[in-house]
């Protein structure tokens, strides 16, 4: 990248918007994943009986849908990120490169 190109990217309004939105989105989703996973782990560490509580009259416990929820949430969160990145973030990136 030449210094002129760098200057043009830096001062492009889409660049500032892209960096701000993507960085904060990435951090928010990271925090959500951390809270879900470590919440699950700490719940087990501190209150095992809660997760061992049966749902209704069956033998299936609260822990099972919760564990599956952690797995599914990891996948869903990546899907949410990819969806927004494919549309919004890629459009911003395209604007920047087209204006170079």
């Amino acid at each position, binding site marked *: 990248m030449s210094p002129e190109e760098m200057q043009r990217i830096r001062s492009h309004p889409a660049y500032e918007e892209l*960096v701000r939105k993507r960085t904060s989105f990435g951090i928010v989703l990271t925090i959500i994943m951390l809270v879900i996973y470590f919440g699950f782990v700490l719940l087990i560490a501190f209150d095992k*009986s809660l*997760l061992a509580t049966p749902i209704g009259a*069956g033998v299936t416990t609260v*822990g099972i849908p919760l564990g599956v929820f*952690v797995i*599914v949430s990891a*996948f869903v969160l990546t899907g949410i990120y990819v969806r927004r990145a494919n549309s919004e973030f890629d459009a911003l990136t395209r604007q920047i490169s087209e204006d170079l």
Partner: protein
Amino acid sequence: MKRLFSRSFVTLAALGLLSTAAAAAGAIEGGGKQPLNLEAVAMFGLFVLFTLGITKWAAARNKSAADFYTAGGGITGFQNGLALAGDYMSAASFLGISGLVFASGFDGLIYSVGWLVGWPIILFLIAERLRNLGKYTFADVVSFRLQPVPVRTMSAIGTLTVVAFYLIAQMVGAGKLIELLFGLDYLYAVISVGMLMIIYVAFGGMTATTWVQIIKAGLLLGGATFMALMVLAQFNFSPEALFKKATEVHPKAIAIMGPGTLISDPVSAISLGLALMFGTAGLPHILMRFFTVSNAKEARKSVFFATGFIGYFYILTFIIGFGAITLLMNDPSYFKLGANGTYDKVKDLLGGSNMAAVHLSKAVGGSLFLGFISAVAFATILAVVAGLTLAGATAVSHDLYASVIARGRVSEQTEVRISKISAVVIGIVAIFLGYMFEKQNVAFMVGLAFSVAASINFPVLVMSIFSKNTTTKGAVIGGFIGLVTSVTMVVLSKSVWEDVLGMPKGSAPFPYSNPALFSMTAAFVSIWLFSLLDRSATAAQERKSYEAQKLRSETGIGIAAASAH
């Protein structure tokens, strides 16, 4: 001092590998060598022939360094997602987790969750920026503005340390597994795995490695899906009916439906969680796969697919474990019987509880399907070790040789030749170590590999990408502190101090089962601190260059073409 994890969990935790599994309950030793399984050997032979054909095809296509390291950069996001899953899902994931579910029920689910949650982190923080900044290795990213010689040396040491521990665990696991699955000798496994990984990597490079991983992922997912469906079909697809039957059959009864002894101390639980989460994001063979796609968009799609495949697979292993409880525990033919015909429903399973999935395959699909699953379990190891070998060979040729030793004055052909030679050397060393460690307890090694990855590779990568202040001195000092603290703490912990070095019980100086909480923190703080204290002229220049790096990492403008064509 509370022990966070029960003994078997520590072992399993350490593992990620079969070997762990082996160590877990002394189970595999209990089984010993099984009769020769011709169907399994024949099906594995087919897999080998087919993948060797692919290697030949790949070798003919490999012309440039980009072909060798990144398969020419033309892998799609979907293919790379499958290959990542194939690279990551080890035989321990399959046999170890289903075995843990078989033995303890719900605890297996807790365990598998930890192996998945690192993937979203890779996506949110690393994947796209890695692709935008690097060419063949994550050290390319770190040395984008930092001094190549010191940071590439350190990254290569980080890579080779992770690869070495991971590889030893896989080799030993392969040896134990071949005795159980095929009825062949330990040494056959170690030598054949070593030779095959050399052939895949040295001749076929990333192209062959990728396709081996994709095929393996397809076979493993297909086989596991079939088993889970066969199990659920017996219960009219009602998980509740499956669980109910399991609680009636299992000696622990209703206790298998809730958390057992896996997690008791929050500090160890968090430390292990961090190692799994951020270690995944620092595994060199995983990071390297992001350079096989053409741009950031394909990189992010790769993680989406990989997360889906791996998560789906862990749900299957849970069903398979419960299926094994219901279908095996009341059938004495799967157990080693005592004098009076009685048996322990967990401990006496032939070959140990890690063989639960393998026996289940026979119960639901007959001996031909048993052969198929055995062959898949073994193929699984091959795909993982091939990825590790390629990452190690690339660190030697691209980071150490081309940049550090030859200082960039090296032709592409020479660099690739060095890489191929390195793959051969790594393969031979791995065979030797696999042989040496046959009788050793290697259960701690996968855990150590993840801890090291979380304590050097991940902090250095993240700090170089996100922190303007990071300097060469800070990254190198911090990285080494992460390496030294993580390795030292593991050596001082129970799994090495007592279980390997044979010190008295309860004498381990480091009380927790995993060092990541401490070693990762030490690495991040020291990278930050020593960068802050670095007032040299080069440091000033490195901070000044941050902006160019950031423009490229965010936009991808000017990225290294994935293909050199």
